[in-house]
């Protein structure tokens, strides 16, 4: 029993590390925000603008436009989308008890994509007053509806007597994704050349179309969904022990699952709506964090938001700089950087796949 008192004093290694990580990641996010405002296609830099302001000079018209109408909304959208994708990935993996689950897998992404493609290809057939009303919000709004619709359908299919079977949901998600993909394919087939170009850029994922209007359209939904997700930590930890055990330790499993699914659908739908298909953030970020500080969802979800935002901003900087003044769709950058990391994780921890 002498040994026991020694053991009790051992610090909670990973818990401490996860809490330190909150601050480190918050710092990294702030730094990358400044970096993101600093660089771009024009020579305008944040540092020269700040220097001007400090010396009491006023900013030129170009500088103001670049800073407030181009880089700031783009930065805000990057932060929102990156955090949304990473948090919904972490939450979905917790809900599915599978470290490889991702909102893309359960058809939410594909459903949102179908909505967007519908809007791009058939949007011109809408009555003129409706087109005027929705303006450039038509595509994001349709993508958002598609994401919600597929989530609700998915939920109906896989939930019986108030119980959701994770296996049924995964399989139903695959079927829904395939169906949405097939319908999207038909639409692509009938699209004209301009529409095809739009579709290609939307599908690859980009923050290029960022505007304050889009930020305000997607922002509230994303913030709400992330806020709700952050309350799921305790429940998701319990769920890691199995659905029955989660219930036995006092978690209202059905309620937690439906809350989680709605939050994930909200975050993913809104993110896909404004940025298209940006992959790998939702699956790589939670993996890296689990390696660094363990799988405790109470810290993992917040850290995922911070790291997801940081990584997406950095990826967007790369996308804007490598072939400036043109830019790469960000989905290409996240795939090029993310896919190898994902494969590396798989090679290192093959046991994860068998869960």
């Amino acid at each position, binding site marked *: *029993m002498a*040994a*026991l008192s020694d*053991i*009790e004093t*051992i610090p*909670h*290694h*990973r818990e401490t590390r996860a809490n330190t990580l909150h601050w480190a990641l918050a710092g990294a996010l702030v730094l990358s925000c400044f970096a993101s405002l600093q660089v771009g296609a024009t020579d305008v830099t944040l540092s020269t603008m700040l220097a001007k302001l400090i010396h009491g000079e006023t900013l030129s018209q170009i500088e103001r436009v670049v800073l407030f109408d181009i880089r700031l909304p783009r930065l805000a959208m990057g932060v929102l989308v990156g955090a949304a994708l990473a948090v919904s990935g972490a939450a979905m993996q*917790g809900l599915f*008890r*599978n*470290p490889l689950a991702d909102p893309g897998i359960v058809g939410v992404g594909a459903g949102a994509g179908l909505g967007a493609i519908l809007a791009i290809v058939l949007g011109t057939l809408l009555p003129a007053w409706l087109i005027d009303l929705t303006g450039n919000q038509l595509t994001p709004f349709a993508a958002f509806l598609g994401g919600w619709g597929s989530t609700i359908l998915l939920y109906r299919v896989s939930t019986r*007597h108030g119980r959701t079977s994770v296996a049924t949901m995964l399989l139903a998600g695959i079927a829904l994704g395939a169906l949405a993909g097939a319908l999207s394919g038909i639409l692509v087939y009938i699209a004209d050349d301009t529409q095809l170009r739009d579709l290609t850029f939307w599908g690859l994922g980009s923050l290029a179309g960022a505007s304050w209007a889009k930020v305000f359209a997607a922002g509230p939904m994303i913030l709400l969904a992330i806020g709700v997700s952050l309350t799921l930590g*305790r429940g998701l*930890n*319990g*769920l*890691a*022990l*199995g659905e*029955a*055990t989660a*219930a*036995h*330790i*006092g*978690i*209202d*499993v059905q309620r937690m699952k439906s809350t989680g699914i709605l939050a994930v659908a909200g975050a993913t739908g809104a993110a896909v709506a404004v940025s298209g298909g940006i992959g790998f953030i939702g699956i790589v970020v939670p993996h890296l964090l*689990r390696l660094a500080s*363990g*799988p*405790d969802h109470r810290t993992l979800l917040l850290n995922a938001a911070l790291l997801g935002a940081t990584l997406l901003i950095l990826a967007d900087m790369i996308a804007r700089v490598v072939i400036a003044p043109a830019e790469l769709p960000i989905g290409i950058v996240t795939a090029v950087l993310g896919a190898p990391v994902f494969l590396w994780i798989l090679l290192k921890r093959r*046991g994860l796949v068998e*869960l």
Partner: protein
Amino acid sequence: MSLIAENIRVSYGKREALRGVGLTALPGEVTAIVGPNGSGKSTLLGAITASLAYQGRVSLNGRCVERMKPWELAAIRAVLPQASRLAFPFTVIEVVRIGLQSGTAGDRPEVPMQALARVGLAHYAHRTFQELSGGEAQRAMLARVLAQVWAPVEDGQPRWLLLDEPVSSLDIAHQLQVMEIARDFARAGGGVLAVMHDLNLTALYADRVAVLADGERLAFGTPAEVLTDETLSRAYGCALRVSATPPSGVPFILPHAASA
């Protein structure tokens, strides 16, 4: 202040796994459920823990279980499942703490380590759960369950350990250790209901035994009353001879003496 299951019926499709089974478990006692494979032992525990759909009535400390919230139940009873697969690489101590999150010992950070020490796994606290052998994982889960209801009696109410084959993958020393833990919990005023496979351990440690066969309760009483040649031979479908250890008269069953 007891655990009462009345007229429990469970069907898997057309097959009736339980046909109106009941039992009463008292605090201060270890109650065992025994029976052959497929007799409905684990199904009965599943119904009592509301892990599966059932008809009938289950009450715990005088309250109907169906009307209690998950967290209310979690505060007075903990459930050890047969096997646990963990989805993420939690460490052993983290797993035990998860059990504590909802229990009433949440403000006592020393409890998880004490629970691990109780099952002899204190030195494994910072290993990942997946590294453990089957037997170690079972004991780690027992530690989690113990941490959840650390005090056998709280606010004058007994708390309950519901164990589904708690010793199934353990060596003999750890079988005895785990059964001692269960008995100590009961002696301290808590209640223990355990699905058991081993008749001899049941005879040694149980205060009351329910024998199930083919979805029905064949007998219910003290080990001496229930573990008889006739009952066991009927339950298990082979001729079994029950003997008794000389001084205490604890029944034991030697497979050597059985005949099909």
